[in-house]
């Protein structure tokens, strides 16, 4: 029998209930004998500790537990409540996202505001250019004619 097995058996059953082969091993193994002696002492100490009476629950212990439960559940939500809360937040977030997407799809890409803005940003080419390249327009639209006050005719193009 190996020392480890002997010590395991001694730990579980105790010395008095040890089988004969264990006792035989102890007779010829000084290390296991010393281990047994020490364990007997320590085990005796543990038995004394085990026999000491534990404190009794004081009167009103249950009431205090229930009060603590009320406080605890009031302050800290249970795991189910937390899950429910998280789920509700997910639903709200999804709804909001869907609304934003819908608005993006439904609203026109350009509106009156955007058109006005674009006209401000990109003013039309000077009328003179159009006029010079389009002789037809010159005839049909006299307002597009370049100014004629003092500049020579060719200068209106620049």
């Amino acid at each position: 029998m190996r020392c480890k097995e002997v010590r395991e058996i001694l730990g579980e059953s105790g010395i008095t209930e040890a089988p004969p082969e264990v006792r035989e091993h102890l007779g010829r193994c000084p290390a296991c004998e010393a281990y047994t002696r020490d364990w007997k002492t320590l085990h005796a100490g543990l038995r004394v500790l085990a026999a000491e009476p534990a404190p009794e629950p004081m009167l009103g212990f249950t009431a205090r537990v229930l009060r603590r439960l009320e406080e605890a559940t009031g302050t800290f939500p249970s795991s189910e409540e937390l899950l429910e809360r998280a789920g509700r937040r997910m639903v709200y977030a999804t709804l909001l996202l869907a609304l934003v997407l819908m608005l993006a799809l439904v609203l026109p890409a350009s509106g009156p505001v955007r058109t006005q803005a674009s006209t401000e940003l990109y003013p039309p080419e000077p009328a003179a250019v159009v006029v010079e390249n389009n002789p037809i327009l010159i005839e049909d639209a006299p307002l597009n004619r370049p100014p004629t006050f003092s500049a020579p005719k060719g200068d209106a193009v620049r």
Partner: protein
Amino acid sequence: MGTSRPQVPDIELIKRVQRGDREAFEPLVERYQRRVFSLVFHLVRRRDEVEDIAQEIFVKAFRGIRSYNFQASFGTWLARIAVNHCYDYLRRERKAKLTYYWQLGEESSRAIEGHAQSASDGALNTEQETEVRDLAEQLLGRAPAEDRTILTLKELEDHSVEEIAEIMKLRPNTVKVRLHRARKRMLEDWKRWQQGR
């Protein structure tokens, strides 16, 4: 002659609590409070802390009762919560406190060693009992939380290897190995202590 009201079975009470009936938890606390007090006291060995820790354990049990699936007995399930809670407490305590030294003089060390024969005969006198008790208490206090927990369940709470396996969610063989290692480490610690290391 008064007739006592028949006791509502645990299963029925647990089902009611699981459905949200908080009042059904009250008789469960009444039934198991002594067992929890004993376990907590043996594990943490602080009389002043027992009630507070026991309250925390019952609050944890109440919060987690919906996860109780009736596979183990309610007592075992509750003991599991208690052991885990005390284990965390012991680890926190161990981290927080500085190592304390209990002077084990050469004389008292020899005297304690000499008690082995009396101990096995069950014939320790009061003084010897106090000495071996103090030794065991100090060694348990110095032991890592894992060793302390498993040895307490076996030696102080008198649980079988199978019961410990169920409480700690381990295989019985693993419990045996851990118990053996815990005993070995504790005895080695005692030797180192005697040598003043």
